[in-house]
């Protein structure tokens, strides 16, 4: 009973709390869409420490098991913790050795439960997750937020992508995009995010998952255009203003 008496002191004292109160090292948006053969997902490689762009080679997309791909925005350490949980999940599944393996729907459900339970204990994993995969020809793309909100859709975006990428995807996504069209659409979204999101870096990876497996591209950067005449001479006709 002594341990119960010592615990309230720890919980009441905010400095002694062991719960996540705010994120420290964060990743920005992840954008994903379904295309003809599977799922395409894009994320940049930046890890910001507050307003500093501290880490520029953070891989925010990882394969999970044989059929799924997980992308995360938000706290990087919580993403790494989730990868450990998923490792254990996949390991136990493999140990059954029954010829069956966890598909994207199952992994998505598991992640929802984990996120929601952590939120109920007021100790959330500060991430917005994007889970995509293909199993037996069925494509699946879902999202889980840090409070446990989950849904499945043809295209998803986290963070700033909600405001900037979603209008573009809603306008231009259609069934049976080819791989090239899908990549072009994702790059369009990532370019707008690069222009307008302060925590974006011009170093991104695009990954695809199909029935055959996961491919994560090498990091590359997008071309940007700054040559508008208004940018070159903004005070034309108005000397002294800006």
């Amino acid at each position, binding site marked *: 009973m002594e341990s119960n008496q010592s615990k309230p002191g720890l919980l009441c004292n905010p400095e002694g709390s062991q719960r996540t109160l705010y994120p420290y090292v964060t990743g920005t948006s992840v954008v994903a869409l379904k295309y003809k053969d599977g799922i395409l997902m894009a994320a940049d490689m930046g890890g910001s420490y507050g307003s500093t762009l501290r880490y520029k080679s953070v891989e925010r997309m990882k394969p999970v098991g044989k059929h799924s791909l997980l992308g995360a925005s938000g706290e990087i350490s919580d993403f790494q913790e989730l990868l450990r949980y998923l490792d254990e999940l996949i390991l136990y599944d493999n140990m059954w050795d029954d010829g069956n393996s966890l598909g994207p729907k199952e992994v998505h459900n598991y992640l929802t439960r984990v996120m929601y339970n952590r939120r109920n204990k007021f100790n959330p994993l500060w991430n917005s997750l994007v889970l995509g995969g293909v199993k037996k020809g069925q494509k699946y793309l879902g999202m889980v937020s840090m409070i446990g909100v989950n849904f499945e859709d043809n295209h998803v975006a986290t963070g700033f992508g909600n405001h*900037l990428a979603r209008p573009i995807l809603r306008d231009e996504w259609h069934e049976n995009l080819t791989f090239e069209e899908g990549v072009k659409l994702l790059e*369009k979204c990532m370019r*707008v995010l690069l222009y307008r999101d302060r925590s974006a870096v011009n170093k991104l990876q695009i990954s695809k998952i199909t029935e055959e497996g996961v491919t994560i591209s090498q990091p590359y950067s997008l071309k940007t255009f700054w040559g508008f005449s*208004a940018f070159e001479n903004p005070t034309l006709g108005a000397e002294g203003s800006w």
Partner: protein
Amino acid sequence: MSQVAVDVPKGGFSFDLCRRNDMLAKKGVQQPSYRKTGTTIVGLIFQDGVILGADTRATEGPIVCDKNCEKIHYMAPNIYCCGAGTAADTEAVTDMVSSQLQLHRYHTGRESRVVTALTLLKKHLFNYQGHVSAALVLGGVDVTGPHLHTIYPHGSTDTLPFATMGSGSLAAMAMFESKYKEGMTRDEGIKLVTEAICSGIFNDLGSGSNVDVCVITKGHKEYLRNHLVPTPRTYVSAEGYKFTKKTEVLFTKITPLTEKVVVLEGGDAMEE
């Protein structure tokens, strides 16, 4: 015989309660949050001039109070201004600067310049330190060429080839950033502005209803009110409302209202 106890206030803003508000905030009293009116306004420069666009929804918190309001305000024959933020502030500030511009036109005998409107607006807004909550997209064509500016409530300005403001600005900016190019024709420009406003209408809850467009070129302007109606009202029945069969018309009588004005013959003229 009683003395007037209350002083008549001098007019303008009164900052008397600021100290008390600060004290209350320190004690933990939550200040009431500002009502955002929700809007998508955009502007872009094309090869012959400027195109401005706006949605037409005015909101009071969660309620749409005006389904078809006008957010593109007249400043001068060659200058128009879109306004986002508190509707009263945008109306008052654009009206005021419009009158100032007209007086200036009479004084100088020349066509107003966009930078004049810009300077008058930013002076006023900075003076009120952001309390006049008006975020504006100002566009026009004058002797020096086409100009497009954004003005923020605190008084800072930007000169841009394309601009968006309001709660739907991110959705509209996503459209602009992916599709804008220099030297667009009139039709391409109108199409892009319409797409950006529609993006705000469909993806932002604070914007909605119809699309207004205003095209300003050298010596000519075109105000396309309700250029696009992307969310028309659809009735369940194609013929509209029909009375159920049980309602029979038994008897119709029409009584015209009589005029009740009494005209005095040869009465006195109105007193001055």
